[in-house]
């Protein structure tokens, strides 16, 4: 006898008749487009494979708001974005097309300057001042924490520059990896020491 021959069997069959992954993928794309058009896609994200690991890229309607390294825990980063910005978050790669393209070019050494709208809303006060200053440090150059403190007009805020770099929500495009110790060693990095060394090596080559 087939299981569908009793009530329970029919219920089980209904319950185990899943939608195909193709159907759900198509519906997801439809939701991405509809939510974008309706102005409801507060944060779009995607991941990107790079030589420094899988990066999470997230953007508001204003611009790129977060780049996160694997070691930061992408789920935790998305949960924090839901809390601090909006829970209206979807994996929706279209908004990140340009950012992904420019990062690919950067890692292929065919791009030295990023031309992307950036949304610095995750940083406040002095940290934001520092993070917004960072893109002024050119490709292949470095500054010490003290030099950055001076540049932003707070020469005694060296440690605060350090914590601004450590909490940088937009690493690589706001190049905190170009800020190093006064003795010339790389110092700490949100993406780990290895990633910092890789980026400095990439730009020095």
């Amino acid at each position, binding site marked *: 006898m*087939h299981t*569908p*021959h*009793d*009530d329970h*069997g*029919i*219920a089980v*069959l*209904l*319950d185990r*008749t*899943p*939608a195909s992954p193709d*159907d*759900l993928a*198509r*519906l*997801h794309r*439809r*939701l991405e487009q*509809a*939510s974008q058009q*309706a102005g*409801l896609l507060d*944060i779009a*994200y995607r991941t990107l494979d790079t030589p420094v690991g899988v990066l999470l890229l997230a953007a508001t309607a204003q611009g790129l708001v977060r780049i996160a390294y694997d070691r930061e825990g992408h789920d935790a980063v*998305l*949960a924090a*974005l*839901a*809390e601090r910005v*909006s*829970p*209206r*978050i*979807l*994996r929706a790669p279209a908004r990140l097309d340009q950012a992904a393209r420019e990062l690919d070019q950067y890692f292929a050494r065919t791009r030295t300057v990023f031309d992307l709208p950036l949304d610095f809303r995750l940083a406040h006060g002095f940290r934001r001042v520092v993070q917004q200053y960072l893109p002024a440090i050119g490709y292949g150059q470095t500054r010490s924490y003290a030099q950055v403190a001076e540049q932003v007009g707070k020469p005694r805020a060296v440690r605060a520059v350090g914590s601004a770099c450590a909490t940088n929500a937009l690493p690589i495009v706001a190049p905190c990896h170009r800020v190093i110790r006064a003795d010339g060693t790389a110092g700490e990095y949100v993406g780990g020491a290895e990633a910092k060394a890789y980026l400095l090596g990439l730009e020095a080559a």
Partner: protein
Amino acid sequence: MKLPFEQVVAEHGDTVLRVCRAVVGVDDAEDAWAETFLSALRAYPDLPADANVQAWLVTIAHRKAIDIARLRRRQGGSLDDLPERPSQPGVPGAVDFDLWEAVGALPLKQRQAVAYHYLAGLPYAEVAALTGGSPEAARKAASDGIRSLRGTFATTTNRET
């Protein structure tokens, strides 16, 4: 704390699609799904943190199905008689397809009760709150629906063997 909406879609997208297929039929299910999740995304920031997300989604899907039913009535059809689709014998997955067709042949109240109780796991009291009537009536509609499906499948199986 509220999860990113992406997790809501990942966790409940499948169930909501099956509920939509059962209630409005395979042809209109994707429109109902899309309308449901767009509405849910709009309202999501105001959803209480301890809410039952799946029950909330089913409530929205129920309303969207009624909207689609109104639209179909204006177009001269009725949600009580879903359009028949040509059957596809020999096609892989055709068994699943026949199942949705069999569900589509049930009266609306039975489709709703089967979908909300058996697919979405709502207790009969909550099913009744959506469809109107008593929990006992919802239980009867679901059990009549399942009995009718059982009959359809028994016939189909007998015919084929």
